[in-house]
């Protein structure tokens, strides 16, 4: 569609490897639970997230379903698909590209959750549900820029759906529920205020990114960007092959993921890492294991290794560390490696 603005190609973003990895892991396994990207100004946070849109793979969904229910997952069908099945109608599969759905800060609560279908009411006098942003986000990536500025009541909505994968709507006389499983990606500038702990906890991965200090790299970044700005379409056209190969990697990774095995030694490693860093609860363990598996799949391997844990531990643990106030955030990589070595 031409009215969707061009985005800077994913493959042309210099540096920020952790951020790119965190995003790709989430595409490969949406169960990881999204990523929170914190960072100072001008570090390509939004650019990178938006650029992801262009490399996302397709998925198989139910044809004609407004929520694009995943085809073949009866347990997760929306009321419409279930109704069709009950009536004996056949559901047909269709390929549909995953996308990045924007949640603007100015969104209203009713629009996000979905609300009364106004046109339907006005024309027929009967009530019907009008899907909202959460419906559009189902099976996709939901992106909130400046997530720490998001109003509390919207945060509550996100938390509810993110927790259950279902959006329950009880408003304006409409009672409805539909699947809303999405990968939540937030970017924020910590200076504008912190995130609510409940929301922070929802993010599977998090990372803190820093600006580029190396003058040569900066100049290279600027050169690329200036070239892009001159003619975005042509710039992208020259990178189509690169972009396609990223998509291919993702597709391969997704296909490989169910076959990735983590033996007991990996489980031991995961548990000892989280224990070492004093992290409560099992969510960190589960997420670390998922992330490590996804990382193996991303790199085309069927077995999880220590390196996968090293590559993902910081992403999983940094926002879960019990931090004494004012300590540098983040995980000490040396400490991590030492801890794994000791096993």
């Amino acid at each position: 569609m031409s009215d969707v603005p061009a985005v800077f190609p994913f493959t042309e973003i210099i540096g920020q490897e952790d951020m790119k990895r965190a995003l790709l892991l989430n595409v490969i396994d949406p169960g990881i639970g999204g990523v929170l990207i914190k960072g100072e100004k001008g570090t390509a946070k939004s650019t990178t997230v938006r650029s992801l849109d262009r490399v996302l793979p397709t998925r198989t969904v139910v044809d004609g379903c407004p929520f694009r229910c995943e085809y073949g997952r009866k347990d997760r069908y929306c009321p419409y698909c279930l109704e069709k099945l009950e009536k004996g109608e056949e559901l047909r599969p269709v390929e549909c590209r995953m996308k990045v759905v924007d949640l603007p800060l100015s969104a209203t609560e009713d629009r996000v959750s979905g609300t009364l279908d106004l046109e339907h009411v006005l024309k027929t006098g009967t009530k019907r549900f009008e899907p909202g942003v959460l419906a559009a986000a189902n099976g996709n990536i939901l992106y909130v820029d400046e997530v720490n500025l998001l109003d509390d009541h919207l945060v509550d909505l996100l938390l509810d759906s993110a927790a259950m994968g279902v959006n329950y709507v009880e408003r304006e006389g409409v009672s409805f529920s539909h699947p809303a499983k999405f990968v939540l990606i937030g970017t924020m500038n910590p200076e504008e205020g912190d995130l609510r702990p409940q929301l922070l906890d929802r993010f599977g991965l998090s990372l803190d990114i820093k600006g580029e200090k190396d003058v040569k790299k900066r100049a290279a970044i600027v050169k690329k960007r200036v070239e892009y700005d001159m003619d975005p379409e042509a710039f992208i056209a020259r990178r189509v092959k690169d972009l396609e190969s990223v998509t291919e990697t993702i597709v391969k990774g997704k296909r490989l993921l169910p076959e990735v095995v983590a033996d007991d030694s990996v489980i031991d490693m995961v548990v000892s890492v989280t224990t070492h860093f004093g992290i409560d609860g099992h969510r960190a363990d589960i997420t670390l294991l998922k992330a490590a598996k996804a990382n193996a799949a991303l790199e085309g391997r069927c077995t999880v290794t220590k390196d996968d844990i090293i590559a993902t531990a910081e992403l999983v643990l940094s926002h879960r560390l019990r931090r004494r106030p004012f300590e540098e955030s983040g995980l000490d990589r040396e400490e991590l490696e030492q801890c794994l070595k000791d096993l």
Partner: protein
Amino acid sequence: MSERPVNLPFTAVVGMDDCKKALECALVSPHVKTVLIRGGTGAAKTVLSRSLSGISGKKVVNCPPNIGEEELFGGLDVEATVSEGRPVMRKGLLSRADGNILYVDDIDLMERSVLSGLLTATIDRDVVVERGPISSRYRVDTVLVATINPMDSDLSDHMLDRFDLCAYASDEDSREVLKRLYDFEMSPESLESRFSEEQEAEMKKIDRAARILPIVEMSDELLNVISELCAKVGAGIRGDLAMVNCSKCLAALNGRDTVTKKDVEEAAILCLPHRRDPTVQPPEPPQPPEEPDGQDEDGEDTEEPPDNNDNDRKDDGQEEQDGQDEEESRNDDEPLSMEDLEDMLFEIGRQFRVIDYLGSRTKVPSRTKTRKGRRAMAVSADGTGRYARSREPLGRTSDIAFDATVRAAAPYQNVRHSDQVSIVIEKRDIREKVRERRSGCTIMFLVDASGSLGVRKRMSTVKGAIMSMLRDSYVRRDRIGLSMFRRDSCEVILPPTKSVEYSYRCLEELPTGGKTPLGEALLRTEEYMRSYARCHVGENCFIVLVTDGRANVPLEEGRNANDEVQKLAEDLDSPHIGWIVVDAGAGFPHFDNAEKLAEKLEARYFRLEDLDADRFAESIRNVIDG
């Protein structure tokens, strides 16, 4: 033109060279989308911005800073929706600015989430609307010109970073300005015709520059210089990009197709001051300081720009420096040496210092004037917040509660006849939503850091209290800030924030000592919080004044500082701000200045003596919670 001109022509505005340059860049380049103009009241910021229409053929669309999201980005057109029987979108102000210039005065008064949305939309040329039954995405191509008064509350670094260029409105010779305005007042037509040639030339210049711009080249060396410079002053990548775009514009405006050193230097003045990390000192002069010796190139570099600069600031630098530019460009064919780079860094650093100096000067309040008259509380109707219940609308509404409206219309359907729609809604059925929003508190600590007894302990207690209050502000949604006064001034050390980490960094080192300009501190902080309260509607604002109440720097020379403060306290009239006075006086003899001050401010009063940080925080909490 038969219509009476309402605005001074662009070229007739006296001086303001940096601002003009920035605005010209925005007209020339599609990559310069946002321009911020900083300057005190009456610095002709608005006049200059409005005059853009005369040289660009674009409309200058005015956007009030208190605009709601619905009005700005678009929302539901209720009348059309009801009459057409389907949701119809009403376009926002932003779409009217498409292809034009959007002008926002006092942009710091804008709600942060609205401002963030506006900047994103302008820079990405893309607007996403998800409101009520409306889900839409449209493209918009506009230039955002915004002004900010540095005396008012400031924008955060991240917001500032998203302004491509930021120019400081320079002080101009008021006689010249007054004369020009008088001429315009008397006969706008004749003034306009007097400047018609210059306007013509200006338009040609912009037109030519826009044509040259796509072919303007920049050497890799200069690009490296830019990156070096940006890294040095602590700017993000947006700074580098803005520098590149701006230097190219400046080259094009001078009719050149190659960027020169001078372009880069000038661009730095427009691109970097607002992106600077304040803890990073401006680049120091190269060691040893170079004498303007026999080498004529060096002599030019170090001497000429200061002259230009002085012209800009003091006189109304009307004439262009074309001749000089040509001379400069001759030198620029030679490759850049390390020395050149250092020279440039120094030159730019020097100009930063000029800006800092101007900035600090504008921070002095004009005169002791307390504003009488109460400002009515603005009702927030921006459609954010939780839909709690519905009610019959108070005046016009765009926030329709459809369920309630339909319910209200239902009983009458039999008697209302219609053959097109199934439900007939009349005006009296319309209900609007009552939205509720959890409101928080903003607490500004105003601390006497002058060199009186026990200042260190006082500071550490206050710091401890701030941190302690912030730590549980997650739950309470409070923002806390800190201003301090010492020596001859009062400054905001920590703008109201919820971030523990950010405040920790700001509070790490608190200087103390010097005299006590209590009067100025009261005035400045009250003004700051008042403007803050204006853009954070619904927020409960408090000022916690920690002082012994004894002043020794009067606002007006020759007056008794203590009497002045007491008088000032009586005159201050801030209906939306609560005061708390914490008496920091210790030992004997105990003065009752602070107590009196509290009385005059109608403030709650307690004494700091023997309170530790946590108990201090607790006491303040208790006062705030009533």
